[in-house]
């Protein structure tokens, strides 16, 4: 199933199966925040992304799922501009990325890539969000300090500013990097596996923050491995394995045939009480 022509939104204030109110998707200008048109990307001879066409709209909240090495992180980096496409194009608000402001995109890397022994505090990490383009030699003023405190309060990090980043829980650590992304007033935040390695409580904290930010009109794109978590919490999903297999609502897209094509393996999909649940098909026992 490929739903490229599906309307970009995921309801307009409707209720998600789990009672999460879906934020309205804005199509006021009719221009997507990000548009990938037949974008392809490779590392040497290895193709990372092939012929990807995808639109991300203001206020949208979507998850990219797919196997390891399927191009999820590369897709985020392509949107961010750190992995330039070799074919096709990427447009930000309908314009060439070099002529539009990249400051309005926030990025939260995988926590695994962070050097947790680096001598740095919570506040120092979040404040990095101020040091973007054109900020050479500038220091933080009173307004910016207030904004920093506001963001920390929104993410329940007040009072933790002087702590080393390793001293926080997994959910708080994710919130720190989310805070850094929020400081630039982004229209879009990209998060690479924000729930990887987190326990259930921390994952709950993270999705709570993300929904809150999304409800304020910020578009959010995450990559994730846990299909059940995606089905339960997110209104839109993109299945990717180097090429775009399908996109749409989880209830529509997460079916056995799409998942087989995405993961090259059999999965059991069943519906219960309006929810989609995905399980692995057990291997036949050895005889």
């Amino acid at each position, binding site marked *: 199933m490929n739903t490229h022509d599906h309307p970009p939104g995921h309801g307009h204030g409707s209720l998600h199966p789990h009672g999460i109110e879906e934020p309205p998707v804005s199509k006021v200008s009719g221009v997507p925040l990000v548009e990938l048109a037949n974008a392809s990307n490779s590392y040497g001879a290895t193709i990372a992304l092939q012929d990807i066409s995808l639109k991300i709209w203001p206020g949208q909240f979507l998850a990219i799922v797919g196997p390891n090495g399927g191009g999820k992180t590369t897709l985020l*980096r392509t949107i*961010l*501009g*750190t992995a330039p496409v070799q074919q096709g194009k990427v447009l930000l608000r309908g314009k060439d990325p070099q002529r539009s402001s*990249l*400051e309005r*995109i926030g*990025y939260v*890397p995988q926590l695994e890539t*962070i*050097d947790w*022994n*680096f*001598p*740095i*505090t919570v506040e*120092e*990490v979040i*404040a*990095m*969000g*101020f*040091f*973007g*383009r*054109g*900020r*050479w*030699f500038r*220091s933080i003023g009173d307004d910016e300090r207030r904004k920093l405190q506001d963001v920390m309060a929104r993410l329940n990090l007040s009072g933790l500013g*002087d702590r*080393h980043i*390793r*001293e926080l829980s997994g959910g708080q650590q994710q919130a720190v990097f989310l805070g850094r992304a929020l400081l*630039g007033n982004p229209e879009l935040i990209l998060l690479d596996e924000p729930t990887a390695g987190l326990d259930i409580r921390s994952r709950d904290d993270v999705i709570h923050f993300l929904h809150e930010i999304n409800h304020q009109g910020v578009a959010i794109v995450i990559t994730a491995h846990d299909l059940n978590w995606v089905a339960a919490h997110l209104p839109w999903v993109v299945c990717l394995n180097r090429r775009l297999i399908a996109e749409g609502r989880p209830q529509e897209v997460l079916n056995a045939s799409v998942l087989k094509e995405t993961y090259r393996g059999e999965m059991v999909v069943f519906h219960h009480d309006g929810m989609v649940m995905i399980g692995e098909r057990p291997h036949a026992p050895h005889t």
Partner: protein
Amino acid sequence: MSLLVPFEYEFFRNGFLAAVVVGALCGFIGVYVVLRRMSYIGHGLSHAIFGGAVLSYVMNVNFFVGAGLWALFSGLLIHLISHRRWVGADAAIGVVTTSSFALGVAIVSTYRSFTRNIEAALFGNILGITQKDLWIVLIISLIVSAVLIMLRRQLLFATFDPEVASAYGVSTGKIDLIFITLLAVTVLASTQILGVTLVAAAMVIPPVIARYLTNRFQRLLILSPLIGIVCGAVGMYLSFYLDVSSAATIVLTSAALFIVLETFFWFRRRGRTLHPPFSTG
């Protein structure tokens, strides 16, 4: 006061000031060197400068001009080669710096007349520092420190998370270029004092010691130069009374401090079975 006796000698006063200034400078830039995992570059650049120093001597050019240009050239070459990606930074440093060092050795072997000056370049000549040298070192230290202070936030971002920094509009390429230039200039200023073989230690040991004492970046930027200053001052005093090479004594003082802290935290770790030995302060 017997403690002031060494200060009766001009050579000691100059040397003491030079050791303190270079200790602070190396301690400051060393924070970034260690966090950017560029210790080998510091070591390599000092060896590369040896080639420039020997050439300057042969061509009768001022040390700071000749060796300075050579250091900048070597630094930029390392930067360019390592950014081509098909050769790692460590390999680029190995090629550039050892070639430069070999050039110096080749010239020395041809002109056997300046063994003493070469010895000074290799092991430092802190007690031969003149007022003019001291001023040059002081001005270089002030300029490098000023640029590091102005760029500290971008440098921090580019050091901690280079890919995201780049995506946020921090010019990581320019930052890298500026940093390697500052590093080359620092190594140049320090080589005459500490010598080619000991400069890297002055840039690496103080931040490593400071790292034991704090988990905060801003405090690291203060503690590391302070440790560099203390080691420079104590090393100079000890070398005067022990009659041992000053540069070597400075490095050995910082090494001794490192060993003391490592031992203390090793015992503390054994007692607590905790994570790495970093304090929460």
